[in-house]
């Protein structure tokens, strides 16, 4: 039995209503743990005053420079002692989950036992960067908890100016849209940078995210310094049986209004069967005895919409790989930036091809470490130096797939034009 609970009239109101309540969970933990009794006391104070009361500090595990988020209470009595002494230290361990966040129950139960012994008993699945967050341990217990989690085969994630814990979608494990082995690629890249994860020494954070198709379920384009998004080069595949099943259920109105009208390049057409064209770049499939779909894949931007609507009837092609975009980040400091295309297509089907991605990631991080200003994200660095300079340093060929449009102003010195043309022509001839 733990000590008596503090009054928590504000938090109590978060036990009402149908959604699972974290307050009810904390109160369950507080039955046995003075630690959580005082955590609830401090949280209630925040609810009363609408202020936060945690400050950072320096807490870690032996051998690593990051991965623990230290929290010390700032809620003090007049004599400087903590107002809620049992929760005066409330550190979080960030632990990297298996790619795709799959678990067996034995592992989850073991996590619970370890965190019952050494921590608050509160675990978040998962943080916004993708870590399992073991929330709430004293300074003394951080090492003990880590040692046991580490012995289970789990390792600390990133924090601070470091390569961060990554995320990949469910992907090939359970999704028909998967365009590469997301989990394998995730591990191949991230496990190359463990030193940069565990010993923060970059200008600022660097995030990788891995999405298996352009639906980008990992939200990589908006928040990853390097986004690896699956795509394909050949024709959309079709399955007539599934196409006819879909059409029988949904009909012509939905086919026209929900797919034809929503195709961003209007390359998806519905035609009478006898008018449907065939050709090297055309996908066709009958949806009924009279009508069918015709897609000119050269005009298709691989947006996924028609495939999402008619899953299985339409599917990504077989020449699969990924598009690499760099520079995504959120607001601070210069405003939100989307990642932008730097490699329109890369195959990831063999170890050799994976190695090419890992090599590109390594060179990008080296360049970032050398050239970014303190607290500058990759996207901000590229904004400052210009994409062409970044591409040049990465030895990547320029490609019109990298821009929405060519330049709209004359403010560029072009006396190297003939040399550039000669280089492009020489490359073409060598290819």
């Amino acid at each position, binding site marked *: 039995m733990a000590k008596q609970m503090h009054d928590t009239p504000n938090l109590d109101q978060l036990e009402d209503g149908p959604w699972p309540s974290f307050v009810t969970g904390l109160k369950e933990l507080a039955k046995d743990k003075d630690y959580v009794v005082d955590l609830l006391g401090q949280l209630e104070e925040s609810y009363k005053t609408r202020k936060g009361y945690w400050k950072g500090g320096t807490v870690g595990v032996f051998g690593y420079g990051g991965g623990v988020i230290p929290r010390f209470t700032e809620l003090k009595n007049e004599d400087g002692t903590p107002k809620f002494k049992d929760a005066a230290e409330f550190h979080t361990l960030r632990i990297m989950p298996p790619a795709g966040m799959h678990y067996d129950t034995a592992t*989850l139960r073991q996590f619970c036992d370890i965190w019952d012994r050494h921590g608050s008993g509160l675990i978040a699945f998962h943080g916004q960067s993708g870590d399992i967050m073991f929330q709430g341990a004293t300074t003394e217990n951080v090492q003990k908890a880590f040692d046991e989690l580490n012995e289970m085969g789990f*390792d600390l994630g990133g924090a601070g100016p470091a390569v961060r814990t990554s995320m990949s979608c469910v992907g090939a*494990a359970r999704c028909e849209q998967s365009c590469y082995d997301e989990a394998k690629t995730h591990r191949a890249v991230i496990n190359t940078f463990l030193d940069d994860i565990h010993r923060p020494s970059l200008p600022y954070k660097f995030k990788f995210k891995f999405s298996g198709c352009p639906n980008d379920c990992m939200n990589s384009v908006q928040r990853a310094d390097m986004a690896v998004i699956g795509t394909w080069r050949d024709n959309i595949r079709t399955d007539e049986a599934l196409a006819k099943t879909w059409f029988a259920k949904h009909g012509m109105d939905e086919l026209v209004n929900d797919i034809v009208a929503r195709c961003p390049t209007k390359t998806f057409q519905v035609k009478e069967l006898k008018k449907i064209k065939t050709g090297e770049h055309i996908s066709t499939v009958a949806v009924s005895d009279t009508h069918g779909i015709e897609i000119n894949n050269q005009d298709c931007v691989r947006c996924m919409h028609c495939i999402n609507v008619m899953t299985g009837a339409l599917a990504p092609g077989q020449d699969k790989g990924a598009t690499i975009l760099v520079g995504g980040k959120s607001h601070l400091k210069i405003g939100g930036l989307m990642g932008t295309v730097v490699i329109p297509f890369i195959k990831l089907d063999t170890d050799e091809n994976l190695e090419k991605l890992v090599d590109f990631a390594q060179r990008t991080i080296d360049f970032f470490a050398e050239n970014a200003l303190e607290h500058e994200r990759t996207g901000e660095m590229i904004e400052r130096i210009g994409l062409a300079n970044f591409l040049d340093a990465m030895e990547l060929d320029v490609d019109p797939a990298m821009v929405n449009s060519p330049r709209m102003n004359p403010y560029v010195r072009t006396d190297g034009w003939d040399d550039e043309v000669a280089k492009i022509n020489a490359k073409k001839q060598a290819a």
Partner: protein
Amino acid sequence: MNQAVQAAAPAAKRKPKETGVPDNKKFLHPSLEKNYGNWKYHDRPRPGVLHHVSHSGDQVWSVRAGTQRQMDIYTIRKLCDIADTFAEGRVRFTIRSNIEFIVSDESKVAPLIAELESNGFPVGGTGNSVTMIAHTQGWLHCDIPGTDASGVVKALMDELYDEFRREEMPNRVHLSTSCCEINCGGQADIAIIVQHTKPPVINHDLVANVCERPTVVARCPVAAIRPAMVNGKPSLEIDESKCMCCGACYPPCPPMQINDPENSKLAIWVGGKNSNARGKPTFMKMVASGLPNNAPRWPEVADAVKNIISVYKEDARPWERMADWIDRIGWPRFFEKTGLPFTKYLIDDWRGSRANLNASTHIRF
């Protein structure tokens, strides 16, 4: 590290095993491992259930349930009990903190759903539903929070409970909340983000000892901070006519307190979309601000979000995400239909903002 730890572990400290991301193969449901990379299609037999069919003919059903994300070990053990008894011992979590139970036998689906719901875990969050809110730490654990995270999410999901369990939206609705303008919650169809309205209040006694002043000066997006001597102490001062109250100076310099119980407000943003489906990915746009940080249940925020959701539900066509819908009806109609006031603060004046102005006569009357 405190002295107790140093004393307790003198000579032989355990070296970490630098193993990185674990291989997920041993955690996969056996059918997922067997059919890895060989899935053919999926459908949704009912809200909260995904049914995947492999080219091999194998099938799996995934039952998705909402959680509170910050889970106590009793809740996690309860979910494990359910997974062992009513499912097949393998689970996964989605990016939005839902748990998925994977079974290879359709007859297990209904009893599993019944067991989850009778234990208070709502089944849903698939397809065209309002999803669980991506969120952050807030007052529970963050060192710079303007508000709470789990509490806001709990209060809102209570209100959106039915929409989580149904698939009645035109398309999926992703939500996020963020406790400061760093926006850890991320881009979403509807996002709730703290918006400070007053410059930081500086404790000049502490700045010199706590803050690396050049770093703080460099952190300001509008160069409003400069070093100064205040009351004979080296400190920092702010040009309040330049300051736009973003709070970027607060993390590197906690004596520059930006959070204020009254003046830290909540803003609502709409139309963020990371998918490439149909249009290109979009960033969300601010459509409302000035909402009070009204713990513990934030009723004004909940009303504003519910209002936008209900107008969208009524007005958008099938497959239109929030951004697609607004593209069709236009911003004037969005503000008209939602009843939200369009104020001068919503006209962008940050770098690149001219691209956000209407340089045409395309106007819907």
